[in-house]
């Protein structure tokens, strides 16, 4: 095993240990109001229908509470389309 391979294996093991331990640290699925879960989850579950009027909580988060994030996603897609059309412009002729 060469030096580069052993460095890659050690790095992979470090990343794997990090992900496994961080999976144990996250709060349990479906439980709220313990000390690890943020209060924002319960706030959105309680108030999303009155504030945004939408039945789907995920869409109300994506398009109302976190609208700037969706704006960033739309900008990423716009940039990708513009880049592809510019890149393949010469190949059309």
């Amino acid at each position, binding site marked *: 095993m060469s030096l580069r391979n052993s460095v890659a294996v050690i790095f992979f093991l470090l990343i794997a240990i990090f992900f496994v331990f961080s999976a144990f640290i996250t709060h349990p699925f479906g439980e709220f109001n313990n000390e690890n879960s943020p209060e924002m989850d319960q706030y959105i579950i309680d108030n999303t229908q009155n504030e945004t009027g939408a039945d*789907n909580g995920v*869409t109300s988060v994506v398009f109302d509470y976190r609208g700037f994030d969706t704006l960033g996603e739309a900008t990423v897609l716009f940039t990708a389309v513009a880049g592809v059309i510019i890149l393949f412009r010469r190949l059309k002729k």
Partner: protein
Amino acid sequence: MSGMSRIVKTVTNITFPLVLIYGLYVIAHGHLTPGGGFQGGAVVASGLAMILVAYGSVWTMKKINEKHLSALESLGALGFIGLAFLGLIFGTWFFNNYLVGNEILFGEIGRGAANIYTAGVIPLMNFAVGLKVIAGLFAIVLVMAYATRLKEGK
């Protein structure tokens, strides 16, 4: 006669309206059921990519130009940002949901009864983002397919 065989074209003709209707349903019911503008737009764009595979890029490029798709995509983006700025004008802040509570358009508040006339600007933003995703993804696939077609022809 470009494209694939007659069997593929027939199956595409049968399944494309179903894919189109399902994608538009996901877009239009984005504030009620799982999904939204991005997901439904991806469904419709994959249906259009199926047409592209079955009929060939030359035939598809004759039917619709990618400049029109770019115009549609920019229209969707402008609609999305314009709705956000209208929240700044009619409401109080950027991305304000100013239509909820009023009786103008989509003004009612959903109570879990799957009422589609709810959620204010969220359905309009879903339509804008859906138009943007449909046009954008189909423009990417169409331009790439047309460019590789020219490389094979040489």
